């Protein structure tokens, strides 16, 4: 499963800006709270995080060096 943006439902005010800005339709408002419905389509563009007025969405990045990925593949 792909890593997805982190949603804090307690902070979500249901404004829907993230849904409107989402390029792939991965976000939806259910009962006034944001949900992710299709993680595989989420390209992690971070625009939902950018427009969220309450800080309810976070798109954190792992910072890794190339060699560690290669080692993982070899294993």
């Amino acid at each position, binding site marked *: 499963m792909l890593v997805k943006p982190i949603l804090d439902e307690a902070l979500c005010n249901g404004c829907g800006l993230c849904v409107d800005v989402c390029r792939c339709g991965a976000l939806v408002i259910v009962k006034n709270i944001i949900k992710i419905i299709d993680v595989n389509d989420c390209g992690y563009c971070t625009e939902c995080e950018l427009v969220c007025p309450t800080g309810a969405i976070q798109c954190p990045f792992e910072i890794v060096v190339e060699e560690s990925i290669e080692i*993982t593949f070899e294993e």
Partner: protein
Amino acid sequence: MAVEIEVLKSIPYFLGLSTAELEAVKKHVFEQMVEKNDMIIMEGDPANAVYFVVSGAVKVFKTSVEGKEQILCILKPGESFNDIAVFDGGPNPASAIAMTPVLLYGINKSSMEAILREYPNLAANVIRILSKKVRHFVSLVEDLSFRRVTDRLAKLLLEYATDHGPIGEQDTARPRLTQQEMAAVVGTAREVVGRSLKALEEEGAIRMDRHRIVIVNKKRLKQISGVGAGAV
């Protein structure tokens, strides 16, 4: 939909105006619906109106001749744009695009001038709002001109990079940073972090791999950051 007094009350420009005053102002306000990705104003065009975001999000930006984009600000409900051009009589200083479907209220230039003469309270609000904008842009100038944000971001990436252990989706020990957190650490705006990450990618030092920032050329990243070999 008609222009609503309750919406006008929530816009900082109109704070402190009585309902009767807002009713008078309302006569000058027009509504405009904009589709997602539609340009609202173009840099260099004559300024016809000041706009207020009622719903949705608007990106205000400039584009270089090479096509590079610099975001000046992301506007959310209650915020205004194009006011500088309306007040100084010059052309639009930047372009604005709808990031979502957007509902705007607007006031034409001539009406705005009349309203300001009529309601001194509103003029005080405008001064406060423009001052806030000047402060924001001064900070942005500082970031873009004097600070070597890309260098400091490169150093941050080296400090946070992990080069051991398997990369697993549930690896909570692996540090993860949002672009907002990176901005806070290097002392800049989130918009500048996005641009700096692109610059580092163009330099061949990193690769954006969805939720990962992959350091593909550690030596180059060290050079950019000013960190000596073996220091990280």
